[in-house]
């Protein structure tokens, strides 16, 4: 196997997702010599291959369009035989079932529990944001000040005001459609005269129906008594006009996992721009395996292993050196790389980890899903997957006691909840009742079949509650001491649980969902999970007594925490510029630096922080 060397670079960036791509673009446009190492497959000339993989998939999950293949010979891929594996939502099932969450042959993550970490990610050009929804909300000011305002957790080392202008830059960079007039709630402020790059995405028929219930909505007992309920259009990195030479959204209802016309931003857009600068290069299928530290505590290089086939042998090893190193994996792969880098015992607990904080505080937005039939058709399965939400419940004094949430209104019927329209169609044709809409289990045909499918599917809708999870130091990413990937690198091991604070947020979501459905005169079908579902828990807790119910949560796809930013090396891994406290020439970027998970989807804030970091690198390191 040959040993490669690349020296004399300004910057090495590990990972080509939104964080890595944005920083590469800024540095590249400033003429800096940048090399990117991407663990996964190269950027294709067009997305036809991804689309065909999606169209042919019997289980159309977020990972379906991308490589490595989710299935191999009809079974879930065994990631011990793959060089750059990643998790899939298909391996979150109970013990002994298909997709057993704790079977290392079916689950890339080595899940130690007690509950399952339910979010997934990609390792491919463009990263996980290839399969995102496009939601581009700003955080509210309180999200940065949980300790000061509510006596909970920690404050961020920066406040909303420090990010405000960077939010604007990020919205321009990824192309956000929204109206400032709709977005100034809960203290969010915009620079005078600011306008989003594109007009907002129109509301769907589902949104408009939910909006009608807001005036009469009352949610008792969860701290939301004084809320003036309203539906707000969701800022989205989805074109309402032609932008960045990409087309206008045609409402394919497929943002997750892939927009067939690339009307939704994905980081391959930025990556292509970075590469066009002429000073950025990328090596694909090159897995960073060690961060080297010299005797002075500076990063001295990164080792990588290059392969050609997903399940093939390593073809080369290499070593790259630069002035600055930027780890832009995600909040599981970045701590994995840091922890693997023990430097022959000189950094026994891994790089950037003098305080033992790397890998701790893993978070998500555990998502409570509720579904119902409207009394009249609202015609889901049309338009972007989500066009509006309820944001006004994201902040309040209740944050002293329970996790806050935002509510995402879905436009895809019961696709998320029940695998529809397939499940109900099969039920009605084969006389089953898996989806709960064929109670008498009749097998229909002809005109009656058409009538029933139309009636049921056109009235379906769902609400998703993204709950703020507490940062707990017992929720960790460590290295498996026995399970490896095909390159011989230890697989990430996850310990994960939900605190009572987080569970109370999910329980409040359940109360709120039922109140909204009641106010809409909609019939609720939210199903209680099975007792062996590893993404479920009983509530209220044992000691509270009284009747119990079992609640299920889903992953929001938000992998957060694990190398938090803070005000000092005592309380954090990086500073507010995402620079390692331990190693001056090392930056750790992405949602791993969030000290708290906040009440909105993370991508826009990742982008804003990375643009701010790129600016700092240019001024302080490469000036």
């Amino acid at each position: 196997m040959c040993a490669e060397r690349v020296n004399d670079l300004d910057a090495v960036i590990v990972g080509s997702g939104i964080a890595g791509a944005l920083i590469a673009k800024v540095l590249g446009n400033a003429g800096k010599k940048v090399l990117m190492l991407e663990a996964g497959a190269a950027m294709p000339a067009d997305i036809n291959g991804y689309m065909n993989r999606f169209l042919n998939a019997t289980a159309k999950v977020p990972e379906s369009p991308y490589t490595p293949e989710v299935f191999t010979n009809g079974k879930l891929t065994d990631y011990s035989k793959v060089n750059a594996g990643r998790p899939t939502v298909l391996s979150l099932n109970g013990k002994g079932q298909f997709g057993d969450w704790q079977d290392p042959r079916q689950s890339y993550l080595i899940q130690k529990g007690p509950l399952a970490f339910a979010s997934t990610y990609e390792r491919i050009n463009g990263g996980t944001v290839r399969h995102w929804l496009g939601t581009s909300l700003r955080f509210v000011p309180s999200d940065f000040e949980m300790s000061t305002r509510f006596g909970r957790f920690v404050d961020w080392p920066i406040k909303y005001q420090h990010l405000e202008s960077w939010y604007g830059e990020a919205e321009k960079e990824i192309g956000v459609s929204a109206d400032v007039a709709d977005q100034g709630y809960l203290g969010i402020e915009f620079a005078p005269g600011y306008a989003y790059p594109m007009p907002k995405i129109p509301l769907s028929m589902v949104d408009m129906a939910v909006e009608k219930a807001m005036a009469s909505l009352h949610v008792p007992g969860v701290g939301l008594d004084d809320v003036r309920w309203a539906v707000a259009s969701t800022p989205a990195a989805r074109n309402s006009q032609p932008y960045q030479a990409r087309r206008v959204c045609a409402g394919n209802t497929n943002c997750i996992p892939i927009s067939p016309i690339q009307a939704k931003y994905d980081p391959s857009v930025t990556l292509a721009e970075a590469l066009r600068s002429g000073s950025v290069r990328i090596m694909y299928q090159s897995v960073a395996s060690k961060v080297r530290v010299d005797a002075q505590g500076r990063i001295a290089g990164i080792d990588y292993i290059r392969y050609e086939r997903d399940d093939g042998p390593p073809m080369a090893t290499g070593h790259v050196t630069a002035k600055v190193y930027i780890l832009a994996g995600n909040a599981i792969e970045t701590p994995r790389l840091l922890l693997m880098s023990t430097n022959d015992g000189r950094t026994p607990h891994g790089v950037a980890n003098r305080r033992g904080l790397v890998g701790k505080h893993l978070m998500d937005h555990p998502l409570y899903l509720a579904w119902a039939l409207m009394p009249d058709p609202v015609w889901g399965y049309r338009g972007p997957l989500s066009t509006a939400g309820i944001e006004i419940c994201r902040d309040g004094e209740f944050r002293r006691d329970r996790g806050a949430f935002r509510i995402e209104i879905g436009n895809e019927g019961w696709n998320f909840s029940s695998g529809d329209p397939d499940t109900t169609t099969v039920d009605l044709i084969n006389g089953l009742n898996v989806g709960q809409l064929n109670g008498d289990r009749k097998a229909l045909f002809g005109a009656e079949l058409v009538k029933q499918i139309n009636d049921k599917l056109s009235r379906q809708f769902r609400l998703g509650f993204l709950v703020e999870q507490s940062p707990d130091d017992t929720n960790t990413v460590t290295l498996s001491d026995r399970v490896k990937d095909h390159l011989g690198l230890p697989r990430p091991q996850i310990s994960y649980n939900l605190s009572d604070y987080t569970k109370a947020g999910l329980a409040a979501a359940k109360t709120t969902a039922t109140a909204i459905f009641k106010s809409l005169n909609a019939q609720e079908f939210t199903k209680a999970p099975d007792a062996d579902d590893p993404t479920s828990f009983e509530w209220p807790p044992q000691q509270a007594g009284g009747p119990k119910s079992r609640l299920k949560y889903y992953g929001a796809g938000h992998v957060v925490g694990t190398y938090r930013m803070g005000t000092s090396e005592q309380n954090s891994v990086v500073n507010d510029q995402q620079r390692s406290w331990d190693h001056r020439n090392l930056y750790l970027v992405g949602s791993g630096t969030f000290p708290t998970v906040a009440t909105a989807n993370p991508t826009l804030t990742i982008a804003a922080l990375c643009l701010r970091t790129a600016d700092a690198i240019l001024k302080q390191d490469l000036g």
Partner: protein
Amino acid sequence: MTIFTRRNVLAGAAVAAATAAHPGTATAADETKDLDAFVALSSALTGIAAAMLAPAVDPVQIKKQYFDAAKSSPSFDRLLQIFRDNATKPPEAIADVILNQSGSDVRYLGRSIMLAWYLGAWYKPETLAQYNSPKAPAGSPPADRVISPAAYTQGWTWRVAQAHPMGYSELRFGYWSEPPLPLVDFTGA
């Protein structure tokens, strides 16, 4: 009493062509007739007009993919024969004979064909039968395969929902703010 709707008139026309087949060795002409019979019986089962399942100008030719998938079943010839024997009946009666009066093999093959048209995926008849048995596994019967990318994009269940397959919209920006066209414009019936 036979009610002449747009749908059974069209089905009837296809039948007239299909039943004129001569017995003997299979020829291209025979296959065309079998295909026409297949479309006609599919229309009776699915409730979608034959002219919508297989339009006169049909560059996609999805019917052929479903026909080929169904043909691999040992009960397929019997299904066609049952259809031919009942072809003059109204569509609901034809469907009733296939699904309720011709035994389990034909019933589940009929359902497999319906699911192919609705979802673009092949559900094996024996899988559908297994999920209807006293020892049925939990959950929904799994599809054996998506018949093809085109089959997914031609799925009727989406159109019956007055929508489009996820990932395959032929509509324009903002359409989701307005109600869809009436159901009849999607199904032709």
